[in-house]
């Protein structure tokens, strides 16, 4: 590809997603979506599940230059199935000219992707549906005020975990669940690393079949930090090894960036009010140590 994205200056200079949406200031999900949309282009139909980004399209406004279909929380992949099947039928029967074809995109938060929508997602992958799933993962049910979701990290305080130990569970490995289905492509991204993100969207766009783009979405309101810090927190998520940038393709997992030296996870946790209870009124060394040990174990396995 002559127009392949290799350096920052190769990133698209035309921005396609409209501004003035009702997303919160500093929304890491919207930051990622802007960049993703610039690479995907407007020949797209976004099939959405209930979540923050449902509010992108409020009658009669939309920031998308392409198409949009809102479904419900559990079934965006099934909506994508219906759209894709119908487009294929129309193309085969020559009722739709090839240039009118669309990329079928699913757009959901972690609540749908990790939980309620997992059955319809798994089934869409089983059927080898040709679609790209974008999950903006802000690690909780953000649109309703950040209750814990299956994507919430260990020890984070949420609206349903206000105690001194925070959320007792562990973040579900959605990347691994997808990879176990042997789909065409799975990748993690973050808006704070735009070059890595653009390369992955470009690769995903060139492939057919089920593809997941899992974007960590720093969330000022849900994670409790100043919106101005969004990008820096995103970078810290990568530098501290909390958010590994990786891909699954052709049956293999590749880590695109192994942070070295890895920043202590404390640096990342200290930036967010949802982890403040780990530092005051007194430092919780046991819990901090547990979180660091989890990350160390992950990277030890990667580097083996």
């Amino acid at each position: 590809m002559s127009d392949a994205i290799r350096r920052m200056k190769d990133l698209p200079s035309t921005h396609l997603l409209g501004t003035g949406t009702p997303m919160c200031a500093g929304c890491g999900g919207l930051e990622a979506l802007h960049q993703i949309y610039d690479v995907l282009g407007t020949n797209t139909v976004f099939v959405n599940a209930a979540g923050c980004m449902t509010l992108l399209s409020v009658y009669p406004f939309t920031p998308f230059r392409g198409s949009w279909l809102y479904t419900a929380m559990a079934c965006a992949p099934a909506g994508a199935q219906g759209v894709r099947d119908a487009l294929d039928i129309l193309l085969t029967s020559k009722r739709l000219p090839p240039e009118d074809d669309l990329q079928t995109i699913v757009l959901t938060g972690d609540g749908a992707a990790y939980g309620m929508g997992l059955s319809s997602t798994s089934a869409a992958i089983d059927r080898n549906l040709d679609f790209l799933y974008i999950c903006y993962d802000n690690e909780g049910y953000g649109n309703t005020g950040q209750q814990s979701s299956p994507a919430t990290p260990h020890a984070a305080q949420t609206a349903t975990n206000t105690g001194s130990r925070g959320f007792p569970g562990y973040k579900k490995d959605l990347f691994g669940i997808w990879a176990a289905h042997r789909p065409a492509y799975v990748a993690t991204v973050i808006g704070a690393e735009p070059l890595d993100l653009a390369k992955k969207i470009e690769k995903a766009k060139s492939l057919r079949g089920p593809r997941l783009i899992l974007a960590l979405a720093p969330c000022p309101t849900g994670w409790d930090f100043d919106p101005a810090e969004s990008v820096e927190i995103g970078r810290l998520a990568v530098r501290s090894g909390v958010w590994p940038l990786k891909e699954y393709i052709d049956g293999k997992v590749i880590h695109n960036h192994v942070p070295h030296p890895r920043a202590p996870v404390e640096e990342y946790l200290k930036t967010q009010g949802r982890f403040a209870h780990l530092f005051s009124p007194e430092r919780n060394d046991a819990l901090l140590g547990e979180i660091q040990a989890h990350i160390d174990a992950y990277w030890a396995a990667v580097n083996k």
Partner: protein
Amino acid sequence: MNRQLLTGNAAAAWGARLAQVDYVPAFPITPQTEIIETLARWFERGEMTGRLTMLESEHSMVTAAAAAAATGVRVFTATSSQGLLYAMEMVFTVPGWRAPFVLVNVSRGLASPITLESDHNDVLAARDSGFLQVHCATCQEVLDHVLLAYRIAEDSRVRLPVIVNLDGFTLSFTREPVDLPAAEAVQQFLPPFDPQNVRFRASKPVSQAVAVLAGSPYSYFRYETHLAAQQALSVLDEIAEQFFQAFGRRTGPLATYRSEDADMVFVMIGAGATKACEAADRLREAGVAAGVVRPRWLRPYPAAALRAALAGKKAVAVIDQDLSMGQGGVLHAELAAALYGMPNAPMLASIIGGLGGRNIPPEEFYEIAKRMLGFAARGETPPPQLLFTERELRQVRKLQAIAVVERKELGEKP
């Protein structure tokens, strides 16, 4: 004209085939499964073109159906009972997309207790969804109403999905002679689907099913759907006439049987009404002027036609094969609302019967007719009746006795 012995399920599948549907999202459930198996076979053999996709749930199935209709193809799907209820979030969601398609529901009682045979609580749960719904009493009606449903659903004055209902077992697995219309005649009656402005394509982006944030736009779109559903009544008359011209069979919002000069009328929907017709014949032989009024379409609700059909009758007994717990029969309540304030309104009684496939034998129809005419003569309205006999109670007591004995056998205290 090609006459064949077909089950209700096969008649539904033939309706979809003759309508040349493009897309069938499917999920199996008793007693509907024969429909999707039949269609799957035809797609595999190339006797139908397009695609059948197996979904992993009815919730996803209805989502895929509506999404495909919103992309511009003709869609057919089918379910029953628990499946319809599993899909219910989307059953209420997709009519607002104004993307027409046809869903055949093969009625079956709802859990609990879980059961397989027919009643109407499943389809009546979809009553307020925005789907239109039509109830069939014969296998011929099933085929005819799949075709009619597409015409009405796709009409630019309506643009709503339609549920075509048939009773599980009594109709789904019963073979009856069915006239299969010629494919060319069907194509003339039902031209290819015109998606109008609701479709996805790169050159003309659209946003569908978007959010609103206030009561006024919400009300506006809800009223639009309601008015379209009401408008379907006159569209239905028009299309029923065209259907008669094309195929020689009369249809319409109501089917009436010997009701014109009747003193006493049974009101029922679906295949159960054919038993009421048989009972009316016997009652007439015994000197009781009985008749039957069977609403085919429940949404749109044919209130004016029902008022006209029931004005001046002495007694009307609505036999509901459904039960709204704590209220009673759904059809009875709706008919009472339609007849309220009518100067020559009949005495209106509510009977609950036929739940979960419970048979309503002829003697019960005779008894209902006799008692209702008695109440009407005394100027009284009886309280709602739940059909259940001493003999049935004895059967249930026997089951309970076995349960107790077995429990004792296991050493448990009863």
